[in-house]
């Protein structure tokens, strides 16, 4: 797995490691049993040894195999439930993401924390986040289905046109990473990527206040605020 910059991604990674490990162990168990049985059966054919009668334990073995899977399934399902992320905390930084062929537009609510007002800050293919604070994203699409995928932040949300997708995560380490579109969205789907930077709180505040000042100057000059905002969901 790629490095994890998020605070909760380790839960996904741990479950992934457990499920892959179990998968590999079960595969090994089945394949070793198969190889052994085939080897013995081939030997028997070569030496013309008499066949063993079908062992009565066969049905028991089948039952055990099914039972083992049932236990593993239930355990994994329970662990998956525990690793679920739940709703974002109320103090999360909110960012609206508008996906379109083939770009990501990010909107921060600005100092008033209300979307669709003159102090909104928007960026194109450039998502910057403060370290340590939960980030909640609402994603909408302007045209076809897109998939917001942040591999290093272990986050994903598929945006179907006409719907709002939601996800949240908490960046735990500073660093630069990428956001990929993970749902086929046309010829330039592969180019629909955004730069993501997890900044220290000072860096983030400096960057955000610079953009806010720009936005205020534009509003004072009578420029309309960037379109495409929506009322944040409940």
């Amino acid at each position, binding site marked *: *797995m790629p490095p994890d910059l998020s605070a909760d991604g380790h839960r*996904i990674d741990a*479950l*992934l490691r457990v*499920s*892959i490990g179990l*998968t590999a162990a079960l*595969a090994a168990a*089945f*394949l070793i049993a*198969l190889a052994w049985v*085939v080897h013995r*059966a081939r030997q028997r*054919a070569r030496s013309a*040894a008499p*066949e*063993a*009668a*079908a062992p009565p334990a*066969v*049905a028991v*073995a*089948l039952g055990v*195999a*099914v039972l*083992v*899977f*049932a236990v593993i*399934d239930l355990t*994994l399902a329970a*662990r*998956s*439930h525990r690793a*679920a992320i739940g709703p974002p905390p109320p103090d999360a930084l909110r960012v609206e993401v508008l996906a379109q*062929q083939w770009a990501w537009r990010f909107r921060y609510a600005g100092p008033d924390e209300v979307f669709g007002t003159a102090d909104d800050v928007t960026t194109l293919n450039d998502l910057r986040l403060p370290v340590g604070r939960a980030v909640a994203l609402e994603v909408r699409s302007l045209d*076809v*289905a897109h*998939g917001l*995928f942040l*591999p290093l932040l*272990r986050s*994903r*949300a*598929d945006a*179907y*046109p*006409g*719907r709002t997708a*939601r996800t949240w995560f908490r960046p735990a380490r500073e660093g630069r990473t*990428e956001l*990929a*579109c*993970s749902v*086929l*969205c*046309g*010829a330039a*789907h*592969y180019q629909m*990527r955004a730069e993501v930077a997890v900044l220290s709180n000072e860096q983030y505040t400096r960057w955000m206040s610079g953009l806010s000042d720009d936005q205020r100057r534009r509003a004072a000059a009578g420029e309309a605020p960037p379109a495409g905002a929506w009322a944040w969901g409940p």
Partner: protein
Amino acid sequence: MHPDDRRTALRTLSLAGLGAALGALLSLLLRWQLSLPGRPIPLLGPLLFPDHHGAVPAASYPALFTLHGTVMIFFAVTPALSALALIRLPPLVGRERPAHPALHRAALGLFALGLALLLAGLHARFGAPAFGWTASPPLSTARSPGAGATLWLCAVACSALATLLGSFDVLATIVGAPKLAWARLPLSAWGHLFAATLNALFLPILLGALALLFSDRHLGTALFTTPSRPGGDALVYQHLFWIFGHPEVYILILPVWGAVSDALARAADRPPALHRAVVAAMAAVTLLSGLVYGHHLLTAGLSPLLAQGFMTLTLLISLPSAAFVASWIATLHGASLRPDAAASYSLAAVVLFVLGGLTGIPLALVSTDRFLHDSAFVVGHFHLVMAATLLLGLFAMLHEALGRLGLRAPSITVARLHAWTTALGALGVFVPMLRLGLGGAPRRLYDPDLYRYLHPLLAWQRVATVAAALLFTAQLAWLIAWWRGRR
């Protein structure tokens, strides 16, 4: 075998072979692009993409994998299984001929028409269809102008209708067989029966979804709407498609499971172990297959309760699947095994099925699917089952079927060599895909090199491409061996 049925079966098999060859060639183009992004393809490249110096153009890449998936599923595996049912089923249920051979003849015509329409779509104005085999709207409707997408819809509808007709014949052949002893019905016949049942239940849903797409494209409706035309919902299509799309996996694999069970039992010279339990497991899979499709939508904003429900149902499919593998091991346990060609293919198929089936578990879990959804891991997983296991299973069936068609099958040595080279090649292609997915590689990317975090994974793309060449060569070698000794 009746000469009419033989002719229909041979032609359907040839069509499937043509589809498989085309699909395989396309996959080689895809593999080339993924391991050497933007580099010209030797030999074929200048012929196919003269305007791009022989390299795959970015705009053509989605069209290539759309055609690859469509051809492989609807015009290679599906007609192959239809033909194999026509050849194998009547003797299994004690009949001379199928109940309604005309249905299979009509199916052949529809498969051929469908393939012709699909290929015609490649030359359509505004380009070939390029929305993936799932044809999600609005990419496949408002954002795919031109006749290519419409021809794609008609082509897939032809294949679906053809499959439906063949399935009706399968059902009538089994259910209408005189003096049928259900308790002794071979597992191969059960496999065809359950697959045909699923076809009869779920193909009409696919046909309905295609009709609705057609309506959005040409009749002015906005059922799977775009934001500029509110009314419908693009997500509804996802439900409709995957209600069919997931059972489709079992439609294709159930006959293989039946054939593998019978082939191993025959080579061990004893009846399949736990016959009734295996039939029950097949029935359980058939039932569950219609209830698990939601795992394709785990990241599409399903309610958490629904997502947990689909996760649990999906995990439950592992129980009957484990029962199959346990029954195969039980059949061979203590036996004296002389593997013929079919058994060799079956053993290789079991190995790949174990790996392919088990890799479904991390995808079924809501929490890990958050990372793995739409990644190369998914592609590796379903190809291990739907490409590798199926291919080997189809060869197991084919080697038996050739005899009934009055054609000579390649020798057991060729078959063994082919089976294990194919298995090795498939592992070489699809295991690296699992690794790529664990590294966070999304599927369907024209140029994965564009992402910094994917740079360390490029070597895995190259391993997969070399293995794909091996896989392709193995099939070519089998074909040559068969052609030279066919009579």
